[in-house]
């Protein structure tokens, strides 16, 4: 190599430990950033909690057959909360950093791109877990909901699954939507989708024709998987729900990859 005279010896710290430390710091600061951004942390935690307090606790003594409505709605609002944290944290956050040129500066640095995506995803998972934990604490303390520890662990596990599967949708929205319109567009997609999948009001209380739309929505399949932990799912098989959720995740990631590469070529 012609430039050998000024080439450093290969850095000693490029090993696994160094990479791990980048992932750790990237994640720590992404989480801190979201926590300190009040418009994000207050609304993503506050809305599901407020809705659950208003509608869930009001149904503390309501039963429909074997179904305890306050417990049923815990499953719904858990999904509502974790999806919100993921779409706003990744979708709106990434769109903003793209538009401001901040991501470009990071890409010019030696930051490994997977560390950036991992940090966004891990922070969305962390917020999802916080939201679901708060909702569960409220449900158990004030909603008369009884939950076995197995059910709690499964709920938290399903929260991680849900956050990861909606991360792809967040990514796609960030790539497609202009930053200043991102919060509004995310709301326009996320709120109707949540309502139509029965995350706010159990589907069985909705008009029949509305119930027919739900199986076309990823939010419905996630919520059915969440409710299946309590044995509250609809008649559709769990395999179908898993397939739908995995298919949705792969579709979103595939489309993101496609859009990203088309943008790269045009850049």
């Amino acid at each position, binding site marked *: 190599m012609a430039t050998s005279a000024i080439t450093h010896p*290969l850095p000693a710290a*490029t090993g696994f430990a160094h990479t791990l430390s980048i992932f750790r710091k990237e994640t720590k600061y992404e989480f801190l950033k979201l926590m300190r951004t009040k418009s994000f942390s207050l609304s993503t935690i506050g809305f599901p909690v407020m809705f659950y307090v208003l509608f869930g606790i009001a149904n503390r003594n309501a039963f429909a057959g074997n179904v305890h409505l306050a417990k049923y709605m815990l499953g719904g609002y858990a999904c509502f909360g974790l999806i919100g944290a993921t779409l706003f944290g990744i979708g709106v956050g990434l769109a903003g950093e793209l538009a401001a040129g901040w991501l470009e500066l990071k890409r010019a*640095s030696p930051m490994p791109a997977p560390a950036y995506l991992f940090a966004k995803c891990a922070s969305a998972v962390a917020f999802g877990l916080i939201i679901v934990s708060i909702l569960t604490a409220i449900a158990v303390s004030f909603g008369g909901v009884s939950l076995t520890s197995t059910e709690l662990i499964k709920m938290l596990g399903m929260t991680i699954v849900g956050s990861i599967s909606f991360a792809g949708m967040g990514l796609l929205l960030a790539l497609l939507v202009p930053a200043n319109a991102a919060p509004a567009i995310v709301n326009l997609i996320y709120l109707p989708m949540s309502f139509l999948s029965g995350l706010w009001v159990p589907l069985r209380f909705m008009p029949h024709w509305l119930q027919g739309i739900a199986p076309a929505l990823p939010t419905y399949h996630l919520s059915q998987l969440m409710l299946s932990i309590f044995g509250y799912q609809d008649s559709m098989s769990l395999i179908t729900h898993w397939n739908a959720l995995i298919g949705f995740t792969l579709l979103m990631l595939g489309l993101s990859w496609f859009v990203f590469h088309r943008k790269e070529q045009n850049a």
Partner: protein
Amino acid sequence: MPLSAIAYETEQIAAKAPASAPHQPIATLTNITKRYGTTVALDGLDLSLHPGEVVALLGPNGAGKSTAVKLLLGLIAPTSGTTRVFGSDPREATTRTRVGAMLQVARITETLRVREHLDLFRSYYPHPLPMAEILRIAQLQGIEDRFFGQLSGGQKQRALFALAICGNPDLIFLDEPTVGMDIEARRALWQQIRSLSAQGKTVLLTTHYLEEADALAHRIIVINKGRVISAGTPAEIKRSSGGRTIRCQTRLSREFLLTLPSVSNVTFNEGAVIVTTSEAETVIREMLLRDETLSDLEIASPALEDAFLALTRNQ
């Protein structure tokens, strides 16, 4: 043509320029063409950077300055031509550990402290500078625990500069580094850029402040419409647009002065004669020999701004 007092200062700096000839370039753009759809951003551009150099990339808006920087950073790929940084593709991770960049960023994560931003960026590099050193160089002492959103425009620029140098890179790109800074902060940053160059680091600077290019750069590359239209030391660039001017009181006639070698123009202004020439020393020697009464002598280089305007207007 306005006479410029800064000119002499500049020539001294240029004289201290590192002898770039014996070194291999550490970064090159070779015959680069970059098209966006039907728009040609760069059109057969060649550019090379040598160790220890401060190079200023000048050009009007849309000339292709940012495109050139993005190519060297590996953020975009050329339509044709080759980009080499430290002998390899700028997109390789190992190349990036030796490069630092200060880009124009509209908005930065405002809810992180200066120290936290630096802690994160330092972690990307295998051999970062110590935190205290970075804070000293970028003059961030005392504000390192503030949130980014609380900083003034000039402080934000200094924090971005700190991000560019925190990994102790050998090649540093500074895109409009002193925008929004007051004069004192700007001069302090210039001093830091000179000291980076003294340590053997290479700096590529784009700027709208011609004074900045004049004060800092060993070499200026003027580009317009994606092509290099002129390159050289600040003094050479200024000279290329018509040479230096001699102003004095003399009895010599206009007709005689015009017969001297390399004199391109002679005008009178408030009783003084102004001679434009590319070989000022020869012309003055001749004038002093012919006119013992010659007085009030001043020699000046044209301001870089005039040279720049002349160069880009001709396009």
